[in-house]
């Protein structure tokens, strides 16, 4: 019992003191995941809109695949990206393995399908209401897709934040391709795993608090944004 209480206290102290090691780990986590989310949104939003609005063969199977890929296990993604980036792999010469860039790549692979699948659903729902009007006004399919992305921007922000939540909280992919190297590729989740197994519970707990807070704050922001948008824009 006392170990747990002590750990909580030390964790609180680490956060309160803004411990340097703690901050660098949190900072790298956010840097990697925010970069990954930005890139995944650039890819996922257009893919989602195109699948929602486009009329091309293979659209239905693609939808099923996208939805299925939302549940990809991070460790498997990590393994595949590892093989791709390892010295013998096709992208080996780039020397990216065990760098933050490798972690960004793995997370982009992980969350692009999430953002694409969620935005496909959102855009497809809007398209059902807007299609006749937009086509009556003479919108081409790409133009309609863009208009829908802009018009559903508040709902789409939820899809992007879902991707961010997933990226910042996953451990398997970044562990494999990053290697959890101290001061280089160590992020919140990999540190928690490592420190727990080492028995350094205070640091693990402190990181755990921060991680949960980040996820909660993200969701609160998403909720507030949607509420505000519904009042302001209908």
């Amino acid at each position: 019992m006392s170990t747990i209480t002590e750990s909580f206290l030390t964790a609180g102290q680490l956060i309160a003191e803004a411990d340097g090691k703690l901050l660098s780990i949190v900072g790298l986590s956010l840097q990697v995941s925010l970069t990954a989310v930005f890139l995944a949104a650039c890819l996922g939003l257009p893919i989602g809109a195109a699948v929602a609005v486009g009329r091309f063969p293979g659209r239905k199977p693609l939808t099923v695949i996208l939805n299925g890929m939302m549940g990809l296990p991070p460790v498997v993604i990590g393994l595949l990206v590892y093989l791709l980036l390892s010295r013998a792999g096709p992208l080996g010469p780039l020397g990216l393995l065990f760098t933050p860039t490798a972690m960004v790549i793995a997370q982009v692979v992980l969350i692009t399908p999430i953002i694409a699948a969620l935005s496909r659903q959102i855009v497809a729902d809007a398209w059902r209401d807007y299609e006749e009007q937009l086509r009556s006004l003479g919108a081409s399919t790409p133009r309609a897709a863009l208009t829908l992305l802009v018009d559903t921007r508040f709902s789409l922000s939820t899809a992007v934040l879902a991707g961010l939540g997933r990226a910042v909280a996953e451990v398997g992919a970044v562990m494999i391709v990053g290697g959890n190297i101290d001061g280089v590729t160590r992020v919140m989740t990999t540190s928690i795993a490592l420190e727990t197994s080492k028995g350094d519970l205070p640091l693990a707990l402190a990181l755990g608090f921060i991680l949960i807070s980040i996820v909660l704050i993200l969701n609160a922001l998403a909720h507030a944004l949607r509420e505000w948008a519904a009042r302001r824009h209908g």
Partner: protein
Amino acid sequence: MAEPLITLESLRYEAGERTLIHDVSLRLDAGRRTVVLGPNGAGKSVLMRLMHGLIEPTAGRIVWNGGGARPPQAMVFQRPVMLRRSVLDNVSYALYLAGVPAAERRARAEAVLERVGLSPLAHRPARVLSGGEQQRVALARAWALRPRVLFLDEPTASLDPGASAEVERLIRVIADDGCSIVMVTHHLGQARRLADDIVFVDAGRITEHTPVADFFAAPRSEQAGHYLRGELSWT
């Protein structure tokens, strides 16, 4: 002889196994206000969507202006579709899609909102307006395109009487501006007030195309007679 606006030649539309429009031929003249009447599921909306080009006919063809180019046109739906932007931007967006140069868009959008009495709402988000206001924005957006023909699919079906009257007034104003009107409605009073001609559709066929006074005095087709007696017994 009046100028032909649109001529349908043996137009047929099938959806899966079902034939919704059976080899329909029809000629509407320019400058007329035509109301399409008929029971639910008769194919009124499908017919209008074929004319407007939202769906492609399975067979037959549509000829505009006796063989000319497809004229500028617009359509207003039962439930107005407003984008999450201001009223003014909703109108400007339509002008943008129509290829109106950026420099002209704003002035044209403001002018049309002025004419329909919506200037005070120009900068309000369109989707938080009332249903009646949104439908007036939809009419303004359509009118801004300077259409030669305006299609309306039950534009007042979800509106209260006051808002309906305002929409009817605007339709008349747009018609007087030189725009032909093709409208589907279930409201016989509205048909009587707005129409020059009635097209009656039943089970995917046009049973008659008659001037409005003749239609209500003595419909030529048996189906229209049944429809009027059935409808009037409820009104």
